[in-house]
Structure formats: C-alpha cells, structure tokens
C-alpha cells in the first residue's frame, strides 16, 4: 500500500442514531473504522492513522496520526452523537492535520464517512476537491445512511475532482443485513491502491464469515497485529531462503567438479537450518493444513532431513525416498560411505551427492512452493545434473576399486 498517513472523518451527527444498519449506524461506523485502522497499520507498520469527528460541538480532532492502534481504538469509546455534520470544515481540518504530519514522506489520505444529508452546493464540493488534488491528498468517501436525492451525485463529483490516477474512491452502502464493515472489506478503500492489506482483509473476511479460524498462523490479526505480521514476514523469508537454498544447491552440483568444498559445507549448514526452521513452520502450519497437505509436507520434510542425516551416507540408489525405508540398502550405503570418506570424495560432501541425484532434486523442487517443475530452465538444469551424475558414477566406480585394492 505504500507509506501513508490517513485521517478518518467520523460522522457523529443525530442521523447516526438510526438503526437501519445493525446495531446502529454509529456502531456500524465504529466497527468499520476499527477494521480500516487495523488494515492500514498492518499493511505497513509505518503508516499512521488519525481520527476526527465532524459533528457535535464542532470539528474535533480525537487523535493525531499515529501508528499506535490501541490509541486509535481507545478514542472511539465514549463519543457523543449530536448536531449536524460539517463536511467542508471536517475536510479542511483533516487536510491541515495531514500537512503537519511528522513523516513528510507519507502520502496523504482522507477517509470520510458521510451518513447525514449533504447541504452544500456541487460547486463548493468541487472547489474543495480541487484544493485537495492540488496538495496531492487522496480522498475516500463512504456514502451510507441518509440518501436523499443528490447526495450520491454530489459526493461523486467531489471524489472525481480529487481523483488523480485512481487514488480516490467512493463507496455507496445501502442499508441491509450486511454489516457496513463487511461491505467495505471488498472495496478499494480497504485494499488501498494496490494489493495492500488484502491478506488482512481476507483474514477478517474469513473471521466474519463465521467459525473456522481462517487466520494464517493461528493468530488473530485483530488482537495481535504485530505477532501476525512478524509470523507472516518470517514465513515469507523462510520460503525465500528455502528457494535460494535449493537454487544454491543446484549451483553447487554444477560447480562440484571444480571442488567447491567450502561452498558445499556452508551450504550444508544452510540446508540444515532451512530444514530445522521449516520443521518449526510446519508445526505452526499443521493445525491449519488439511490432512493431505500435512502428510505431503511431512514427507517432503522427512526426505530433506534424511538427506541431511545421510550426508555421510552415499546414496547410489536412484530412488531416494525408498532408500531410507529399506534397511539392507541403508547398510550398504553406510558401507559405501565409509569407504568413500576414506577416499578422495571427502571433499564432496554427501549432501551435494544427494542433490546430484536427479530424482531427489526434482522431488524436493516439487515440494517447494512457487517452483514450477515444468519450467524449461529447470528442465535444462536437471538434464545437466543427469550428465553430472553419470560422470560421478564413473568416478565412484573407480574409487571403490582403488580402496578395495588397498
């Protein structure tokens, strides 16, 4: 979503007592604001959100833009309903607040909840819109509540005057069984200009759809946004690292003939780290995975872990997955590895041997997310691996003979 400072303008006029949105218009508004604040702060931790009320005794700023979600939620309690909404003053004050934000690199955005009727002329609204556009402030309007003739049009002209490259939006919400917040989740107001808080929105939607914990990591983003964010980031980092490790492994195998000993040993540690942390992640994910997926994931993990264990074990067999389950072959492999380590292949760690094995590599690659086994570049690389492994086979045949002779 990018770095943004947002000011939310609440309508707390008398028209908000009406109950055509459940439980009351004002409550629905408050819920929607909660969700928006959460989405903004989650999509970028440096985003700030501020709140002001437009009705009551006058335009009043409740909280200046802050990234502290608790402060924002706290100020929504104990708000009074009364009088009429002053839209122009509200927008002007919001603009002023944004102008004096601490981090000047943040883009400016105003979100207006317009529930009461609008008494201004279209021209006035257009002028305000142009002023906002001049100062590069984006505007989102939620048109709900009263809908006398002209209100929707007026708000549309306002947003059209501000709109610069699709950064401003307007949403019309009519009364009905759906909560205001649910309707808003699917609008660009929530998802920002890009993909933005769609992850958050999806989680929130899953929650409101009722029942199943649709949260990614068993953590409610509403209750613990930082934890959910941290988990999500570490998950992505882990995934990136695994892919990088797999790629590096491929490169290692390619460079093996030149005796990349150091590279492969450091690679070993990377792989084992990746394996360990992926086991942790697997635990986290287990509760959310279906049985099939869990089984597949465990199998993949088992394969890679066995690969790490048997780095001292030479895998000559074509089928890596079968090897460890059959004891006699394992014994044979162990014997081979003992001979191997006595020989020159101590420079080539078992890990790189394992990775040479084409079928093992392809099975690992299949289990990695985001890797398409049909990718032509992958196929080329696998073909080259196969050539490698053939020459390696010949070398292996030579060295056991040599050792045997000794």
């Amino acid at each position, binding site marked *: 979503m990018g770095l943004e400072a947002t000011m939310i303008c609440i309508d707390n006029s008398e028209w908000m007592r009406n109950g055509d949105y459940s439980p009351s218009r004002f409550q629905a508004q408050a819920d929607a604001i909660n969700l928006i604040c959460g989405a903004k702060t989650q999509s970028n931790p440096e985003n700030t959100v501020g709140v002001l009320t437009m009705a009551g005794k006058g335009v009043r700023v409740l909280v200046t833009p802050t990234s502290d979600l608790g402060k924002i939620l706290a100020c929504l309690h104990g708000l009074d309903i009364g009088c009429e909404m002053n839209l122009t003053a509200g927008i002007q004050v919001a603009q002023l607040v944004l*102008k004096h934000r601490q981090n*000047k690199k943040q883009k400016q955005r105003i979100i207006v909840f317009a529930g009461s009727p609008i008494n201004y002329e279209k021209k006035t609204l257009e002028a305000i819109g*142009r*002023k906002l*556009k*001049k*100062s*590069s402030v984006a505007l989102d309007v939620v048109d709900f509540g009263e809908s006398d003739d002209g209100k929707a049009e007026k708000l549309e002209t306002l947003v059209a*005057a501000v709109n*610069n490259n699709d950064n401003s939006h307007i949403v019309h919400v009519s009364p009905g069984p759906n909560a205001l917040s649910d309707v808003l989740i699917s609008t660009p107001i929530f998802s920002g200009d890009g993909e933005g808080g769609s992850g958050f929105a999806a989680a929130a939607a899953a929650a409101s759809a009722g029942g199943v914990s649709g949260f990614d990591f068993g953590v409610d983003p509403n209750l613990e946004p930082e934890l959910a964010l941290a988990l999500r980031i570490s998950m992505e980092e882990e995934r990136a690292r695994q892919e990088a490790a797999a790629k590096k492994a491929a490169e290692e195998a390619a460079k093996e003939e030149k005796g990349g000993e150091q590279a492969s040993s450091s690679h070993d540690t990377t792989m084992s780290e990746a394996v360990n942390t992926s086991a942790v992640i697997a635990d986290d994910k287990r509760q959310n995975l279906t049985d099939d997926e869990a089984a597949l994931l465990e199998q993949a993990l088992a394969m890679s872990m066995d690969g790490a264990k048997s780095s001292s074990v030479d895998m000559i067999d074509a089928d890596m997955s079968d090897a460890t389950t059959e004891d006699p072959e394992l014994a044979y492999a162990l014997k081979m590895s003992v001979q191997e380590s006595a020989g020159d292949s101590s420079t080539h760690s078992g890990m790189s041997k394992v990775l040479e094995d084409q079928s093992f590599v392809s099975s690992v690659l299949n289990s990695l997310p985001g890797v398409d086994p049909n990718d032509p570049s992958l196929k080329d690389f696998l073909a080259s691996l196969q050539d490698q492994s053939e020459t390696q086979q010949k070398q292996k045949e030579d060295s056991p003979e040599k050792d045997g002779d000794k």
Partner: protein
Amino acid sequence: MASVVSSVIPRGQVDLVDFVDWSGVECLNQTTSHPLANALKQGYRDDDGLRLESDADEQLLIFLPFTQVIKLHSAVITGPEEEGPKTVKLFANKEHMGFSNVNDYPPSDSLNLSPDNLKGIPVTLKYVKFQNVRSLTIFIEDNQADGDVTKVQKIALFGTTVDTTNMKDLKKIEEH
C-alpha cells in the same frame, strides 16, 4: 530544436542540476503525464516534446533540495509563449510549503518573466539573498495568458557551490 540560447552560462557559474538531491524533489499540482522531471533533468528539459504541466489550476509549487550548499546566481525558465509562467516567486531554505502558506512569507526573490525570458534568456537573481541555499522552493503563481494550465519547458539554475567537504572523499588514515 529551437536555435535560441540553449547553453549560455554566465561567467564562472555552473549548471546546478548536478547538485539537486533527487530523492527529496517534490512538485505540487503537476499532471502525472507531465511531471517535473521533464523540465529539470538533463536531456528531458531540452526535448521540446516533454514539458511540465499544471493540473487542477495554473499554480505550481516546486521544492528542490540540494546535495550541498550553493549560491544561486541566475535562472533560465523557458516555456510556450501563452502558457508559460509569468509570476515566479523563489524561496530559499523553506521546506514543505503548501499553497495555503506560500503567501505568508516574503519571497527571497520575485520574478516577472517576459516573453524573452521564456525563450531562454537567463534572469539574474538577487544574488545577495541566495548566498547560502540548501533548498529552493519555486512558486509559479500564474502564466502569461492567465489560462488554466501552465506549461514549463525547462528550468535551469546557475550558480556556484560553497566549498563544503564531500564526506565521501574523506578517508580514514590507516595505521601502519
């Protein structure tokens, strides 16, 4: 290509485009299709097809921070005869101004561009006011024809640098 004074640089002055800190450059009320870079950057500004245009109304507010302290001597602002800028106010060392408070401060210099200036003849500034400039704000108030859109072909600034230490050249003395 207009054959007019395109590279007349006053004696002893340098073109300050090299000292502009591009990460902090801002321009309010520009159209996205005709941004400030068209008027400022080398190459873009000499291209007749690329220019800076205003969006909602005819005013433009440009903020240029510099990588080091400079003295500003003169400026060249070119544009089309009708829609080129007329009144231009310059503010030295004022950050983050908006259209609302731009008229609250007296400008360091105020220019009234003539059609000759728009063709490329440099305008000499009040050198005294621009001795120690870290950032420059250019406020284009209106244009020649008082139309709704102001178009600027090129903005070039000339001056000298005040000798400041370039931190990148500082090297640690090695112990032998």
